[in-house]
């Protein structure tokens, strides 16, 4: 079948979780032509935001959602990945069986692992360059922190064990762990969706209240994205992707719920603005602040989780699945990126390293920051266009052979 051949082509097929064939099912009420483009659109947007956020000292990351609410692009990325993963692999599990589908999921996790190692090598090169070329007495302490290079054997092995995860690459190990453990989760989600979601929520609760997390290197670090906490968004995405979102439609359509969500988003907006805009500085009363700060990203703080859910509900309401603008060429670049998320994500990490390098080595002007941000997004779109084209060609050839 064309679909599975395209998927099994590791070199350049579109994402496994993005089947080209029309698939009118769970994602709300998709229009005649098939998929819910909103998933791709917002995942593409999240990838752009993640790229922009990962360039330190970049003016362009002011437009990203983390400056306007508690949650950020990571939540969007993890949720949509869970959603599409469950949708696509769930369908395969029904058609092809548990074993084959599990193997496919694990192969996907393996690809991510390879990508992680590849990016790690580039990261090492950049850090080695910084350590070797830069000596400023002001930064002795910071540079000393990069001394893991003095024992590359340990650093490399720790990286292979996913225990050494440089800043900015944290999402990747999280995603690898989530995918590698996905087969049994998906199996459970298909049988007892509500029970699985409840178990997942329980695990999140335990993780946030006890700080239970995976160990990391060096010293007594832990994972920046606690997988025991973040799995909740992935599983919830999966639960929605397997039909949960239909069951939630009454909640989503309720004016009271939408109003509550809007209110929460507004409060969150004001609080976050008070962090960087002096006139609002005294906005959060100390009693409340002591209760809510700091808002943990590591353990997916409830404030972040609720913010994401509120945002999702409002967006689902504001952008119906059949909105004509979703098919406009204007949004096509973003959708393309969302459809090739793994490759685009990895390219984005690489590009953020490169942009950081250019900003420090060549010029860090405002204009340069904007130019690099734009150039990065253009390259991400270019790559996804290429991948989509290649996937399409391969599928056509396969269809001709088999059909």
């Amino acid at each position: 079948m064309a679909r599975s051949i395209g998927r099994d082509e590791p070199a350049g097929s579109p994402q496994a979780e993005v089947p080209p064939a029309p698939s009118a099912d769970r994602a709300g009420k998709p229009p005649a032509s098939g998929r819910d483009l909103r998933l791709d659109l917002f995942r593409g947007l999240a990838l752009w935001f993640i790229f922009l956020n990962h360039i330190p000292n970049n003016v362009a990351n002011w437009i990203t959602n983390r400056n306007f609410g508690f949650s950020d692009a990571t939540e969007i990325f993890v949720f949509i990945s869970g959603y599409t993963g469950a949708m696509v692999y769930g369908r395969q599990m029904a058609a092809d069986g548990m074993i084959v589908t599990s193997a496919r999921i694990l192969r996907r996790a393996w690809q991510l692992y390879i990508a992680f190692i590849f990016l790690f090598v580039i990261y090492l090169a950049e850090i080695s360059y910084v350590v070797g070329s830069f000596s400023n007495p002001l930064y002795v302490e910071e540079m000393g922190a990069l001394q893991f290079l003095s024992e590359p054997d340990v650093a490399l092995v720790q990286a292979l064990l996913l225990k050494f995860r440089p800043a900015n690459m944290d999402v990747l190990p999280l995603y690898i762990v989530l995918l590698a453990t996905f087969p049994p989760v998906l199996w459970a989600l298909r049988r007892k969706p509500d029970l699985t979601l409840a178990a997942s929520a329980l695990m999140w609760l335990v993780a946030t209240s006890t700080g239970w997390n995976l160990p990391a290197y060096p010293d007594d670090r832990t994972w920046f994205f606690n997988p025991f906490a973040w799995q909740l968004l992935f599983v919830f995405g999966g639960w929605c992707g397997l039909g949960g979102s239909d069951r939630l439609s009454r909640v989503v359509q309720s004016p009271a719920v939408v109003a509550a969500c809007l209110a929460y988003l507004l409060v969150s907006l004001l609080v976050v603005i008070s962090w960087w805009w002096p006139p609002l500085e005294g906005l959060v009363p100390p009693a409340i602040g002591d209760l809510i700060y700091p808002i943990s990203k590591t353990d997916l703080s409830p404030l972040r989780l609720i913010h994401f859910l509120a945002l999702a509900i409002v967006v689902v309401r504001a952008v119906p699945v059949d909105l004509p603008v979703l098919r406009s060429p204007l949004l096509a670049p973003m959708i393309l990126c969302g459809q090739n998320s793994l490759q685009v994500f990895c390219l984005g990490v690489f590009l953020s390293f490169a942009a950081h390098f250019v900003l420090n080595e060549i010029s860090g002007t405002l204009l340069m920051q904007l130019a690099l941000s734009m150039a990065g997004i253009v390259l991400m779109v270019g790559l996804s266009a290429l991948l989509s084209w290649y996937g399409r060609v391969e599928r056509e050839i396969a269809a001709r052979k088999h059909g």
Partner: protein
Amino acid sequence: MKNWVLSFVVSALVLASGFSARAESASVCAAPSELTRAVFTLPRLAKSLAAKKPTPVLVLNSSSLAKKSALKAGTDKDAPRAFPSFLEETLRARYPDGGVVVTTHNEPRATAEAILADLPGVLAQARPALVIWQTGTYDAILGADTSAFSDAVNTGIGHIHESGADAIVMSPQFSPRTAIAIDVAPYANALAWAARSSGIPFFDRYDIMQFWASEGIFDFDTARPSPSQFEDVHRCIGRLLVGMIVDGVETRALGSR
């Protein structure tokens, strides 16, 4: 992060007090007033200064200065003057009768939590009127949990207050070259809130340095910094700190906002 916004709101505070230095540094120790005002008062310090008795100021530091570095062995001669030294000089000039003595307690590579264990002992020995606590750098390097960090800072501020001293907390440095590996911003944010909720001034060195970088006052990412950059930066930090201290001492009647 927020500095380019702040730069629009600038009402620069220039502290070009007496001390003559290289033109570069003397004229540019400026930062937006949002970053340099005390907001909260320093009543214990004010009392000690007014009483004209010895006024010990303690700087708690995690810095490892030049001599600790294996990376840049060979370039260090005499250790350069760091901000505590400039702080003492400028404070003494401002309060000639205050009996100001600045001491530094350095614990290289120590997180806020690690410092806590020694803090009561250090305080009992130094009996300071003011503690300037610079923290967060090593926490950021380790990627320590921000809530544990904030708890530790709050506990530390509690110790300082119990010992009868005022406190100012200071955020880590802005370091563009290492920013890809070490993300300091969440710790600076946690510190800002800890300071606010404890009602003490917050010296946001991170934002101030970022302001300097964005205004072209200092070039922190060049491969060849000027030989005097270390001292110029520390001199400015020392002076702006004094500006904040003076603010905190003199606005005692207003109380916290």
